[in-house]
């Protein structure tokens, strides 16, 4: 019977099944279910609205005057200074013999004793310093944000010789164990330094902050901070207009501390043998306590995310629910390719929508924040195209895209919308909520190892290593650096995709 039949030959143009065709098929699927583009649009609108609303709730103003460093950074510049004017080139040398607490508190690791050359006695003026610390060895620091490590000796067990030399507008820091053999730490240029500067000894300690943490709130309280440093072999080379050393409390107020009139003033005593004993408080460092106006502009992302998670999950679980996935796999038997196409479509669409939402949300929130008092000089105008704003805007869009992809991959693994959505919410949102309630180390651990770490990308503040800070989740601090945080989420998404691909190959459709 078969021999008499001519098998059918189609006269259709031979079809093609490249990845581009598959992408187009999935793209068509997305746009032909009316609810899906709608959810995408709703996610954008909600994100923008809530970002703006969140920003409206914050106001600034009425606080103490802030100090700005040479580059416009908000800084703390308060310390005990024993100084003489220095005209032209020269150097200042001292041996730091000890540093101890003057108020019974434990010594802060970033307490500082050393030599400094500063433009003048005004807060925020340019400076360079060589200093010894109890916890971080010898350092050379300049203009608040810069820090170079020297030797690692512990000041409390062995005295250190420190020297700072000025040549033109270049300053070079040295250290020595014995005052004879000197090693160079670094040379920095302080452009525009006047011919006459103030040079001498300084002493500072960051405030000791006590963290109180309980359900519903956390507070940081000033817990004192007063140190005494001892020095000898003080020497100044070069031309000085003043014949005597004078002492000043630069800035007066300690950060987070009592007002200058309430706190005990610093003191400087000189022994007959030429040993100096300074007592003081304060810090010479960037101030990290202000609000993060970048991060404050992205509060809508947290809500917009939920819509995109649902979208990512439904894009695949909707097919499993109705058996449509079998039609998909009969059209394209290469299942992992289908996964790749679906992932690409969802990733591109959610990133584009996310970028629109975060760029618009950020711009509107910034203007709202400016109206509410977050203005220069304390809060610089942030341009969308400058880092860290650009990083936060693009990074938040990437975050939204990655959670949608994570939901899609989990949808393939679980084949169930509710399960996939719940899992992503538990992974991304729950750690944030728990981080407010858990003890600080546990909270920080959660924000390191769960996909919630990705919210670090929204931080606009720079956390400097030379400043100790309690990374409090309530204050919007994430323990990981911005890109590292995003990488954690990307890792979860990649792992979920691998698991999905493995399940697709192994299980019947």
């Amino acid at each position, binding site marked *: *019977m*078969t021999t*008499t*039949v*001519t*098998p*059918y*030959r*189609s*006269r*259709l*143009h*031979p*079809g*093609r*099944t*490249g990845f581009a*065709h*598959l992408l*187009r*098929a*999935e*793209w*068509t*699927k997305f746009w*032909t*279910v*009316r*609810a899906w583009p709608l959810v995408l649009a709703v996610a954008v609108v909600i994100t923008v609205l809530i970002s703006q609303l969140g920003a409206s709730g914050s106001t600034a103003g009425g606080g103490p005057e802030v100090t700005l460093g040479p580059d416009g950074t908000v800084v703390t510049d308060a310390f005990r200074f024993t100084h003489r004017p220095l005209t032209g080139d020269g150097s200042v040398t001292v041996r730091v013999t000890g540093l101890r607490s003057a108020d019974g508190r434990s010594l802060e690791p970033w307490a500082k004793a050393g030599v400094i050359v500063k433009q003048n006695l005004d807060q925020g003026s340019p400076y360079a310093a060589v200093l010894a610390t109890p916890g971080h060895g010898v350092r050379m620091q300049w203009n608040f944000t810069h820090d170079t490590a020297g030797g690692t000796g512990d000041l409390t067990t062995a005295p250190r010789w420190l020297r700072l030399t000025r040549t033109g507008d270049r300053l070079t820091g040295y250290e020595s164990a014995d005052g004879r053999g000197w090693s160079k730490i670094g040379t920095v240029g302080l452009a525009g330094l006047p011919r006459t500067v103030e040079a001498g000894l300084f002493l500072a300690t960051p405030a000791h902050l006590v963290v109180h943490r309980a359900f519903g709130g956390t507070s940081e309280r000033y817990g004192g901070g007063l140190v005494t440093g001892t020095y000898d072999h003080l020497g100044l080379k070069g031309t000085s207009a003043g014949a005597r050393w004078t002492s000043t409390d630069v800035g007066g107020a300690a950060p987070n501390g009592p007002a200058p009139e309430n706190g005990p003033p610093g003191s400087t005593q000189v022994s007959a043998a030429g040993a100096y004993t300074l007592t003081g408080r304060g810090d010479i460092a960037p101030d990290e306590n202000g609000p993060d106006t970048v991060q404050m502009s992205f509060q809508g992302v947290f809500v917009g995310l939920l819509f995109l998670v649902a979208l990512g999950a439904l894009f695949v679980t*909707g*097919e*499993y629910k*109705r*058996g*449509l996935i*079998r*039609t998909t*796999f*009969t*059209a*394209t*038997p*290469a299942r992992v390719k289908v996964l790749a196409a679906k992932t690409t479509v969802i990733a591109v669409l959610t990133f584009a929508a996310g970028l629109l939402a975060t760029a618009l949300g950020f711009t509107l929130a910034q203007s709202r924040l400016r109206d509410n008092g977050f203005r220069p000089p304390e809060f610089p105008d942030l341009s969308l195209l400058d880092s860290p704003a650009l990083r936060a805007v693009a990074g938040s869009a990437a975050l939204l895209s990655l959670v949608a992809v994570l939901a899609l991959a989990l949808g393939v693994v679980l*084949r169930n919308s509710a399960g996939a959505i719940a899992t992503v919410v538990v992974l991304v949102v729950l750690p944030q909520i728990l981080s407010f309630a858990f003890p600080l180390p546990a909270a920080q651990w959660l924000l390191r190892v769960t996909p919630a770490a990705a919210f670090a990308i929204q931080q606009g503040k720079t956390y400097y290593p030379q400043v100790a800070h309690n990374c409090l989740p309530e204050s919007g601090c994430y323990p990981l650096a911005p890109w590292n945080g995003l990488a954690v989420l990307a890792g979860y998404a990649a792992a979920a995709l691998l698991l999905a691909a493995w399940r697709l190959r192994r*299980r*019947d*459709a």
Partner: protein
Amino acid sequence: MSDATIEVRNLRKRFGRTLAVDGLSFTVEPGTVTGFVGPNGAGKSTTLRTVLGLDAADEGEALIGGRPYAALRTPLLEVGALLDAAALHPSRRGRDHLRWMAHSHGLPAHRVDAVLEQVGMETAARRRAGGYSLGMRQRLGIAAALLGDPPVLLLDEPANGLDPEGIQWIRGLLRHLAAEGRAILVSSHLMSELEDTADHLVVIGRGRLIADTTVADLLAAASGDRVRLRTDSRAQAMELLAREGATVAVVDRDTLTVSGLPAQRIVELLTSAGVPFAEVGAHRAGLEEAYMELTRDAAEFTATTDADEFTTSTAATSTADADADEVTP
């Protein structure tokens, strides 16, 4: 490209403790409509899913034109399949459903319009699939199967939910498609649906092959050499014929079937004995009757081979069948 055939060779598929398909082999040739028949849960859908590469066979293989489904470069142009007409997104329009399928193979838009016209869905395809009747879903599913103009078609219960007019239409369509030289496999749990459509039958029960035969052979075998007799004097005729060595069965109030005697001899006997009768002719079995006979044999066969299992598995049949056919393993 080799011949457009479907070959199933020694296929075995197990879901947990249920053996859904048990060593099944058959071939679907070009130019024929092959009916794939068995009660609900016999393993028809599982077999079709395995042919389409959706389920992995535990043993054996299923080939399309000599190749496994996964090896097909442009599957929609080589095999058209209708597995489940309800597998549609309710808020996607019927036309858009076909559009994404067409896009996956780079098929032009006019191909979508052509198949919609072929199944009479030009207007309905502009509406969302959520509002479709079962008949409309079936038509859209058939359109999807025809989209790539494939030489091989696999249709799972395509007449399900169609109105009598629709059933007439699909019979004609299948005959027409087969006449073009396509190999068509149509599953059904109702033999009557395949009457006048199928040339060939593959009958399975509980995952095993019961019959693989042409429709003509099956009907001849079921009809046997029986003679159909209509008479008002039923009791008289029965007694007379039985005495002559015939086996007589009652069909209804005035109809008997007689085996063991040729029709001519029956007429002679009745005439000479003066028994009145209205009609004598060869008995023609219907497909349904033939099928019942086949499956009855299969049940007996099963009972004698694994008698221990039989009682429990018949009791569990409905649930196990549901597993095999509907639940995603």
